[in-house]
């Protein structure tokens, strides 16, 4: 092959590569990142929420103190090491309505991550059955369930700071609850499956 032909071949290959790259940019490709990002308009006054439900440092510390002393929580973690990975406010909701209403602070929600996934066998854990109608105060019913669960790597703990009490210790996302049984004779007072009580499927 002459030098001129070699050069021509290289040029053709190079041009083809450039064309392929341009084509890929134009039509997209499997590894391509997303396109242009949207922008946000200045939020209108009507869509602004005054946040009065944040959790102060002292409140967070109090919640952790209550959690660590709670027999249900201690029973759930047993001898497994854990870390507090999230803590945030636990507030009332707006019920099923869309009218304006200010959420009120109930306490703290804590996510505890266990050093290794564990199983819970017939542990007595507190649970708060939340009443989305919020007609009662507090807006939940307490019950102590006997819980058996597999693959528990997180626990979600709810602390009612007004009452100074841990009211729920639940196996976190990713775990499987095999059984959660309330005590004999327990009667649920929170409306169950009322038309407006569920998220909506």
């Amino acid at each position: 092959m002459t030098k001129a032909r070699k050069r021509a071949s290289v040029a053709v290959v190079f041009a083809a590569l450039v064309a392929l790259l341009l084509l890929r940019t134009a039509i997209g490709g499997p590894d391509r990142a997303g396109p242009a990002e949207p922008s946000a308009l200045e939020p209108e006054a009507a869509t602004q929420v005054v946040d009065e439900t944040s959790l102060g440092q002292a409140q967070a510390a109090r919640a952790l103190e209550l959690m660590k002393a709670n027999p249900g929580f201690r029973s759930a973690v047993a001898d497994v090491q854990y870390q507090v990975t999230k803590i945030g406010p636990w507030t009332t909701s707006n019920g099923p309505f869309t009218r304006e209403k200010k959420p009120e602070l109930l306490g703290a929600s804590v996510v505890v991550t266990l050093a290794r996934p564990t199983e819970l066998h017939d542990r007595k854990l507190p649970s708060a059955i939340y009443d989305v109608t919020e007609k009662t105060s507090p807006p939940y019913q307490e019950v102590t369930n006997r819980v058996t669960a597999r693959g528990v790597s997180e626990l979600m703990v709810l602390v009612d700071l007004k009452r100074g009490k841990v009211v729920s210790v639940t196996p976190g996302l990713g775990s499987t609850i095999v059984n959660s049984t309330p005590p004999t004779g327990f009667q649920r007072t929170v409306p169950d499956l009322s038309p407006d009580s569920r998220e909506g499927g």
Partner: protein
Amino acid sequence: MRRAHVFLVIAAAAALLAVVGPRPKAEAATARNLTLLYIDEDRFRNYDFTDRAVTPYGVDWPIALVFGNNATIDRVKARLGNEYDQTGGPMYGRMTDNAGSGGVGGGYVWDDDSGGKTTKCPGAPFQPDSARHYRIYADGDDRLYNLAWGYYVFGSTHWDRWECGGDTAWFGWSENAEGWLAWRWSTNGYSAAEDWASFYNWEPYRVEGTHVWENDGYATWFWVF
């Protein structure tokens, strides 16, 4: 004999729940960062709503999904149907495909969607205790269009836990659910760019009633070809 009767009753209840599903309607929640997003001539709200009303006190979840390039509602649902093969209750997205001159014109519409869900009634007898659920929205022809994104639809996603019994019902963890949806899209052979763009709807970890908020404010882009 008695055992057989008990089994039949449980089976009948499970079948009924599986067919009927949880009852509709919702616990509305409070958005910290509700605003209007724009891209070219299009506008849409960065949360979906529990009713046809734009209010920060009546939202369901942050918008965190955009299926673009050549998407329609049906095309997206077909491609996720191998896992998200059930439906839930409807929620509402707010948008306009052409905001008009200056971006202040009309054309705003509502779209309702019941979405796709991995289990119809989580927590019901013989059902998993949790389900992942997404909803997607578009206008009348089931797709929106602009030059930047092509034909697209947008949506939200979240988890439903013990929705139909078994323990206290909880909903949320939308950031986690978004990651799972991107994983499913990719394992189905399609491409996604996780946390590609800010949708200005960051929600720090908090629990509002039974609504567990957690969203990093960045939406995922799903390529549709």
